[in-house]
């Protein structure tokens, strides 16, 4: 069904959602922040 194929093609075109360098930097920054907080929590536990 052509109409469905066109919609699937449009959907696939939207992926990946984000590819920018900046996103990766922010993403890793968040990741590290959360790991740091987890580390602090383990300290507090100890």
């Amino acid at each position, binding site marked *: 069904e052509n109409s469905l194929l066109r919609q699937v093609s449009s959907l696939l075109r939207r992926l990946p*959602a984000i590819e920018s360098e900046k996103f990766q930097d922010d993403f890793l920054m968040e990741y590290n922040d959360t790991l740091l907080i987890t580390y602090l929590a383990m300290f507090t536990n100890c």
Partner: protein
Amino acid sequence: SSDSIFYYDEAGQGKFQQEKPWANDPHYFKRVKISALALLKMVVHARSGGTIEVMGLMQGKTDGDAIIVMDAFALPVEGTETRVNAQADAYEYMVEYSQTNKLAGRLENVVGWYHSHPGYGCWLSGIDVSTQMLNQQFQEPFLAVVIDPTRTVSAGKVEIGAFRTYPEGYKPPDDPVSEYQTIPLNKIEDFGVHCKQYYALDITYFKSSLDCHLLDLLWNKYWVNTLSSSPLLGNGDYVAGQISDLAEKLEQAENQLAHSRLGGIVPGPFQRKKEEESQLAKITRDSAKITVEQVHGLMSQVIKDILFNSVRQ
């Protein structure tokens, strides 16, 4: 039948008002039912206040030992530690709003007030307690609801509390411990001094068939919004505040520990030991709660990244 709760029985309400069953039982009201409409309006209004406290009134009725909140409206009052009757224009607004409502066929009376505690939990401060006690003297039945919009975002569920104060001088039996919540250091005293002057009610929610239909329609939008937002990004300030608060508490605990070791005027060794533990235990619990929320936020980011960014054409 689920919509029957929206029917307002004026005669029944009047009769209940006459009987005043709450007058001789300070613990009479035990439950609160909040409509989806009122909850949404209150939470959105609280969120719109940012870090400032906002407040409003709730309209509804009673049903036995339950207070039913049907609707809510915001008051043009802002500021920290404000009383609901803090400004004349708020009063004027209230009266006008209630009267117009009656004209529009909305018969419910004002049954309480709500206000927000952005970032510092759902409880009643000293000034809140006196405000509520005043209202319970002259406007019964009256309920106090507190909403924390910041923690709502961080925890991903509505942080809300409903309370009623005890009469002056009343000594409550030992309350069952309500759900533990983190109280910031600069609020602990205000919380601690007054926490025995009121009790929490059990909150449930209800929605009308129209609500269900509307919420179904909005489901996709809600789902997409949730998916495309991240509590990690939205609540950075709040988390930073939480961690600095933790650091202060740790410092305080350490000072007290050192202080007690010097042998100042302190209770017996066992009592001190117990006190410090509970303080440290609370600090550890606070820290674990923050971390859990952060890790949840990170998990959702990682899952989204894997699902939507790893697909290559």
